[in-house]
């Protein structure tokens, strides 16, 4: 047990000694790596006993069974009907394709694994060895050699003697490093007005004509299309208006009940009063949450709240959609509404404040600061 002590040098062994067994040579090899055997014995004291045979049979059985499942996997992969056919009943084989190939593959891997592990645990010799650990850096001699090598190299280059050369190299390398990252500049794009201008902007997207409201399928929205207590998602009626090209445009058009509309009119921020943002009992809020931009679209028509399902910000519909719970800090911008002579809703202007998540230079509103 104490044979591995550093001070006890085992006597030198002559490897050509014919009396030496293979194990002796082997142990000598171990010693070269600082390894001593504490304990080493065959798993089965007598080779070929019934117990050993039994274990061999178990392990071979596991391997063969694994092969069987692997074959089953390959067969199922090739021959099992796999084409997805939609709503099929549980009795149809193709609904079982994924489970069948997943489970057969899994079982074949698991069985092989258990085979290998059982082999390692039950058939390999019982062993315990101890190896020296040479921790804490190189030998003093090695360090000295390394130091002198590095020093010589540094002196050969004359780094200490030629300070100007070094400075010049650094001065030259700095722009070179910049040149290496400069092409990444191709990624840089001016965000310009992407955070402030939406698809509701008449000048930019509709040749100055007011942008009408449409539904996902392109139908223009009339007041009679939303009943009291109802809401629909509306998009700017421009080309691709309902697509992801206008991510800050989707809005929620809500037809409030009379008493709720009355409440909202009382609470309306001055900037929305000034532009007469409501049309009758209809109000449109940006659907994009002012927290991080998920659609805040869970409209609770009884408690008059809008909830964002991503981080649970809640907005009060009858109070300018001001945040009343959760991490959001700003109200959902209101889209000023009116109805044209054809009876279709249109946006009187773009949102008065930028919709969507906050950013550092987004203008603050006195209305919000008051809260």
């Amino acid at each position, binding site marked *: 047990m104490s044979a591995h002590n550093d001070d006890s040098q085992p006597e030198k062994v002559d490897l050509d000694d014919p009396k030496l067994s293979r194990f002796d040579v082997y142990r000598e090899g171990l010693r070269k790596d600082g390894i001593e055997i504490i304990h080493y014995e065959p798993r089965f004291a007598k080779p070929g006993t019934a117990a050993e045979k039994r274990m061999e049979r178990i392990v071979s059985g596991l391997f063969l069974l694994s092969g069987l499942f692997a074959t089953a996997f390959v067969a199922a992969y090739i021959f099992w009907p796999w084409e*997805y056919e939609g709503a099929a009943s549980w009795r149809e084989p193709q609904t079982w394709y994924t489970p069948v190939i997943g489970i057969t593959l899994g079982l074949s891997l698991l069985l092989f694994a258990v085979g290998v592990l059982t082999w390692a645990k039950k058939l390999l010799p019982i062993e315990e060895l*101890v190896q020296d650990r040479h921790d*804490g850096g190189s030998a003093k001699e090695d360090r000295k050699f390394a130091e002198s090598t590095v020093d010589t190299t540094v002196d050969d280059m004359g780094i200490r003697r030629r300070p100007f050369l070094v400075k010049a190299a650094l001065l030259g390398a700095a722009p070179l490093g910049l040149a290496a990252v400069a092409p990444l500049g191709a990624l840089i*794009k001016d965000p310009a007005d992407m955070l402030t201008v939406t698809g509701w902007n008449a000048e930019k997207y509709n040749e100055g004509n007011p942008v009408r409201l449409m539904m996902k399928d392109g139908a223009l929205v009339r007041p009679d299309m939303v009943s009291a207590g109802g809401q629909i998602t509306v998009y700017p009626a421009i080309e691709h208006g309902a697509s992801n090209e206008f991510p800050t445009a989707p809005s929620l058009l809500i037809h409030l009940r009379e008493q709720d509309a009355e409440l909202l009119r009382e609470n309306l921020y001055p900037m929305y009063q000034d532009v007469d943002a409501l049309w009758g009992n209809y109000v449109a809020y940006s659907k994009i949450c002012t927290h*991080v931009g998920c659609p805040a679209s869970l409209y609770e028509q009884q408690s008059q709240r809008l909830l964002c399902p991503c981080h649970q910000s809640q907005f009060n519909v009858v109070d300018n959609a001001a945040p009343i719970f959760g991490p959001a800090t700003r109200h959902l911008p209101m889209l000023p509404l009116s109805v044209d002579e054809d009876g279709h809703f249109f946006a009187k202007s773009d949102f008065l404040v930028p919709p969507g998540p906050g950013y550092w230079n987004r203008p603050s509103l*006195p209305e919000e600061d008051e809260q």
Partner: protein
Amino acid sequence: MKRRKGTNESLMIKAGGELDDRFKLAGPTRVLMNKVFPDHWSFLLGEIALFSFILLLLTGTFLGLFFEPSMTHVTYDGAYVPLQGIEMSKAYESSLDISFEIRGGLVMRQMHHWAALLFMAAILVHMLRIFFTGAFRAPRETNWMIGIVLFWLGFFEGFFGYSLPDDGLSGTGLRIMEGMTESVPFIGPWASAALFGGQFPGTSVISMLYIFHVFLIPLIMLGLIVVHVGLVFAQKHTQWPGPGRTEHNVVGFRMFPNYIMKQVGFMLFIWGVTAAMAGLFQINPIWLFGPYDVSVVSSGSQPDFYVMFLDGLIRLFPAWEFRIPPYFSLPPVFWPGVVGMGLSIVLPLLYPALERRFTKDRAHHNLLQRPRDAPHRTGLGVMVVAFWLIGVLSGGNDVFAEKFDISLNAMTWFGRIGIVVIPMALYYITYRICLGLQQHDREVLAHGLETGILMRDPEGRFYEVHQPLAEPDEHGHTELEYNGWVVPKKMNRVGALAPTDKGFFKSIEEPTENGGEHRDEIEAGKHQ
């Protein structure tokens, strides 16, 4: 039969000779095959991550054969009926095709996703083991830092992979990432525009994430994993204290055949579990989510579990926005999202240095510590785990609220208060428990085991007989020194450090003659 065996052997020797002539392999082969590894179940946790990483490379390559990272618009006309005729991106269409039109594609997708979750889960569990046993201490700080970097690379690798199919859920995740990017002072909008090629979601982000997901990050990870494992190999594995184990040796078994067979077996086992899970449990059914549409969201939208912690913090953070009107503000998501993530990257990286600074312990440690012997560290670890768990729980608080009929607002408030109070309380409780356990160990070493035998002395007082663990010395003391390893607490544990009942599923009666002398020593308390 015998003769053939002989020729086989001489063939092998001949082949070995030829190889050695050219590559000089004899020395390294011996060193490699004989290297001693310690054996403990907790040393196998990192392997789960390693082998699921290999599986991720294999399944990912399969998926890469069929996935098209393009946001070009197409109209779906595949096998999944409810999406027929729907406009979607090529990326989403090809992900649907992998699920429905490619033979075995769905099982590969699911294996890839389960292996990704397993990879991250294993890193976490492995990291806890390293932390609580002090295995990160000198000389292994570098490897701890590489491990932390690997966790965060895995985090982004996973998040990008989750984003690639361009389904409803992944788009929602990207949207949140975009909101976080925008919140960074000064560069936010510019960074977001660079990431998405202009306005979110744009038409380029999927191909950008793709090159990160399939090339850049895996390449860096592979390199770091090689270094990580190489350092474990070069610095030699830590070991638990115990009889015959010192700071200057490793007790265990050889790399060949024992260790390598267990590794190969475990690798296949991990792959088998992943494949079976891919067949048993449906994961990420993208066909239910529909294509990403900025105006569409689902209740119960969550990221994968390793991101959920961050999402939970974002949910819990109060509505605090710092404003300097008219033109400067810090959105609320900046604190948990950007600062929170930054701290969760930096603090773990610095932890080994911080601990060195506070304990002033600059020595090398190759023996592990039991958690009870480092009560401050253990308390801190439990605190961080509690903080993390409440964050994760809050990341799914809407699902909890719905399924267990709790008010969503109440869940949020529970999280807000709990994430501050509970970790602190747990730190203190854990610290006290550690001290108690330490004290009990030392009591047993000093006075012996409680035998359960009650005696009454002549004066009528009752006392319990204690069985000392060592022979009394010349002064009659039986006190033993604590050496950082399990102290027997019951009479029938004396004589064996492990349970006397051996065998995993059923007990194996084992003759004691092998370890006999060994055991006497332990009983006598003479080890070390």
